């Protein structure tokens, strides 16, 4: 697998939101992996190569966005993977800065912004 084939990791507990993001990624031929919370994401990352970007929801059951981010930074293999924070909170900008994130997407997520963020960090898979 070349670096160009790296996937987008979506960590989001709300099935509707997660499905919508995944569909858009699929339509634009990006590879993706999805997890419903931080713990599940760490599980997935154990087997998969590191993703090109992580779209991280903050409020999730079992392991939330902040806990995941700590675990990620503690893993040298994953620490350098850029994170984009997803949140409906008004202060998502501030949370992103605190977490040392590469960017943020305010919910409700606009398609254009989502694509721009993904394009910035990843390349679509070859058809």
């Amino acid at each position, binding site marked *: 697998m070349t670096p160009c084939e790296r996937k987008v990791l979506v960590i989001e*507990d*709300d*099935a*509707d*939101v997660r*499905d*919508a*993001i995944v*569909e*858009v990624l699929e*339509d634009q031929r990006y590879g993706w992996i999805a997890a*419903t*919370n931080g713990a599940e994401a760490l599980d997935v990352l154990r087997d998969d190569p590191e993703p090109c970007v992580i779209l991280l929801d903050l*409020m999730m*059951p*079992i392991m939330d966005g902040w806990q995941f981010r700590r675990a990620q930074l503690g893993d040298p293999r994953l620490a350098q993977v850029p994170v984009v924070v997803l949140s*409906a909170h008004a202060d998502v900008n501030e949370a992103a800065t605190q977490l040392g994130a590469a960017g943020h997407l305010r*919910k*409700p*997520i*606009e*398609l254009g912004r*989502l694509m721009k963020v993904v394009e910035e960090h990843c390349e679509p898979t070859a058809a």
Partner: protein
Amino acid sequence: MIRPTEAVQSLELSALVAQVTDYAIFALDRAGRVVSWNAGAALLKGYDPAEIVGQHFSRFYLPEDVAAGRPERLLAAAARDGHVRDEGWRVRKDGTRFWADIVITALKEDDGERVAGYLKVTRDLTERRAGQEALRQSEERLRLLVERVEDYAIFMLDPDGRVASWNVGAERIKGYTPDEVIGRHFSSFYPPEDIADGKPARELEAAIARGKVEDEGWRVRKDGTRFWANVVITALRGDDGVLRGFAKVTRDMTSKRRATEELAARARQQGTLAALGVFALQTADLQLVLDRAVAAVTTTLEVDLSSLSEETDGGLVLRAGQGWAPGDRGALRFVGSSPVAEAWTIGAPVLVTHLPSDPRFNDPALWGRGVVSTLTVPVPGAGPRPFAVLGAHHGAGRPFSADDVFFMQAVANIVGAAVVRRQTELDRLEAERQARVADERRAMAEAAVRERDVYVSVVAHELRTPVAALMLKLAGLSKLVSDPSNERRLTQVLPVRLEAAGRQTQRLTLLIERILDMSRISSGRLQLEREACDLVALARDVVQDLREHTRQRRTAVAIVGAPSLPGTWDRGRLLQILTNLVDNAIKYGAGSPVEVVVHGDEACARVRVIDQGPGIAPEDQERVFRRFERASPLTQFGGMGLGLYVSKQLALAHGGDITLTSAPGRGSTFELALPRGVPSGEATT
């Protein structure tokens, strides 16, 4: 018997007589002519012997005496009786008069029978006469004065104490005429108790010892009535010091004494009023003020009964009083034509001097207690009508004075002021209470507005996430459609995506339905559609539907207990309740296994949803059933916080309930209990 010749011839005597100047001594012959004339006669009458000897002695008399034959009558009397004495006016030579004391002695012949002549001795008593006349006139004036004095009884007592004289004042004050009283012992003017005590005799003894004694005390009139007397008894002694009797001056002080007593009574009443006024100001309990007021009436007016009667629906009822029977207070009513009711009706004092004979009144309450005189005054209240009636009632005919009426009105005014003060205080408290109620209502209204704002905000937030997801999905689809090169892919994904969008729309509809449930519950418009269903089967359906959720949370859910538990319930609502309970257990159970225990008896079906999660603190257990409440922080988990509230209301609508048993660290158990049949009065729809 002195013979004239002897007398005249006695030279020695003659010489003596001739020298007497204080008395006119002269002799008359049988016919009354002057025979001899001494120096005293010359001095007294103004005649020389040569002028007068041989003249008739009648020239010494006033013409009217001469005309009346007085000189002859005196000579005749002297001839008959030997001598005669006379006092009267005589005339001097110069015509002036003098008051003369004369003695004419008949001088007899030797035979002792025939009158030889007369010897006349005359003394000038003019000065003495004038002094006596002055004294007599003075005494007469004094007597008249004393007799006419009306304001003082002035009378004399003899040394034994018997009445010797009596003036008009004595008659007026004591009622006896002089005929009735003169000779009577003065002790009859004293009351029996003083007589028994020996007071009359003691007063005379004191007057004898000290010359004068003064006393104030009760005395008795002829008709037996008493009067308050000021008495002065003076002992009267002659020049020789012998007791002649007593002068007694008595003054009727009854009205003065009454005035003094009235002054004292008024002062006492004012003192009582001042004390009552202070007490009324310092005492919040109105009954205490009323009790004190009636006590003041009883004590100050010295009456048998006092009353304070308050107007009630059943008439004027005794609210406070003294002298009444136990149990009268609060029970005794003044009905009919009562002086108490009269004072209330006319709003003015009512004074009755003799109740039994007064045709205006027939009051069994007063009449039955022997009341004769009664004084009632209205007690002003907060409104235009009197608050009550204050009464003073007495058995024996007690005359109530104008002062008594004023006193009663003053007491009534003090009580009235206390009543008004209390009413003002009650009004103030009521106004405060109403203001508090209004404040509470406003606070509740504001809280309701705030709650609605929170509700709207929560609802908006909850709806936004799924709508946003749907929008993103449709935007993706739209982008796909816009590129013709995607046609093959479009054919592939379009049906799946539309179906998913449809499901999402359905979930949104359900969410909106739950929100409407809240509104239905609030307004009491929630309706159940009952049908026969099996609780165990419903539980299985719910767990099946939540499979995705269970998988995500890596939570095992087991259903245990009865294989089947039929009842008559609203299937949709029951699914809603069970979904909420199981979903919560998965959500908040932190991945611990969830157990759904279904069991029941003939009457009641029960579902227990048990998780092994962190549990809920005791102080939070009641809150979780309220609207918008969650035991865990809002930021932690999604969900509207309406679920348990709605579920509990639905259970209650079924005639059942949802209860919680939990402890921190020991998990939570929510139990749904439902009656299995149709509750009486509720039809199956």
